[in-house]
């Protein structure tokens, strides 16, 4: 029976924390540019920092803002880079 106490405590803490995250997420939700996630999908998502940005998401934001080029990403494969370039060209065109 003793095993039930730690199990209950662990489950309780997990439940409380999960619920708190749910509440925080609900009240502090922020809408993001959907293009950002799509560009992140096209990047390798290693978060290696080889591009000079802290992570792939920052790199994606820089790509959308024309502050960086796909060639800056070290681990990006050649075919993937072409695909990314195609996506970005369309994005730049739609912006103009």
């Amino acid at each position, binding site marked *: 029976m003793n095993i039930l*106490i*730690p199990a209950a*405590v662990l489950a309780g803490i997990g439940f409380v924390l999960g619920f708190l*995250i749910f509440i925080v997420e609900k009240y502090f939700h922020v809408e993001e540019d959907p293009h950002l996630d799509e560009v992140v999908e096209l990047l390798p998502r290693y978060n290696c920092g080889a591009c000079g940005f802290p992570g792939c998401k920052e790199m994606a934001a820089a790509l959308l803002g024309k502050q960086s080029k796909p060639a800056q990403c070290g681990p990006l494969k050649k075919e993937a880079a072409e695909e990314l370039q195609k996506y970005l060209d369309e994005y730049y065109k739609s912006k103009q």
Partner: protein
Amino acid sequence: MNDLISLAFSAFIIENIILTQFLGICPFLGVSKKKSSALGMGMAVIFVIIMSSTITWVLYQYVLVTLKIEYLRTIIFILVIAALVQMVEIFLKKISPALYKALGIYLPLITTNCAVLGVAILNINNGYNFIEMLVYSTFISLGFLFVMYIFAMIREKLDYAPIPKAFRGTPIALIVAALLAMIFARFGGII
């Protein structure tokens, strides 16, 4: 009061979390290429260490000890730290997008930063009371920021130094880190 000052000093320099306890080496090497990002990471770590060690200390003393289930502390601490970082991230994104952008990927990376869990466990192992715990976690995280910043300054200068090609980048950074650790080891006998 004297005890607290010596505790603060030893947490800051003598027991420096990176260079003498060797915790949090991953951000130390990974995020020290630029001074600004080292500063951002240091700030985020200060924030998370102080918050998480306060919560874990209270949880340990008042829940785990009362119920005599102290052996659960590692798993509960990890749970609390992970959830806390997640909440802080969502919170910052809404309240201060500028700070959120500056911290970027480092914020979620702190979840798996062993320095945070290390400080939470050291607070318990060393048997600190509430005030001592606060002083210790504050100064240990300030020590983290301090070492990150000097290391980033050195690494920025290293970019212009005439280093043999084979040593450029990470190898020379590791050598510098070893030299820094040797310097910090010399503080060992002060208190």
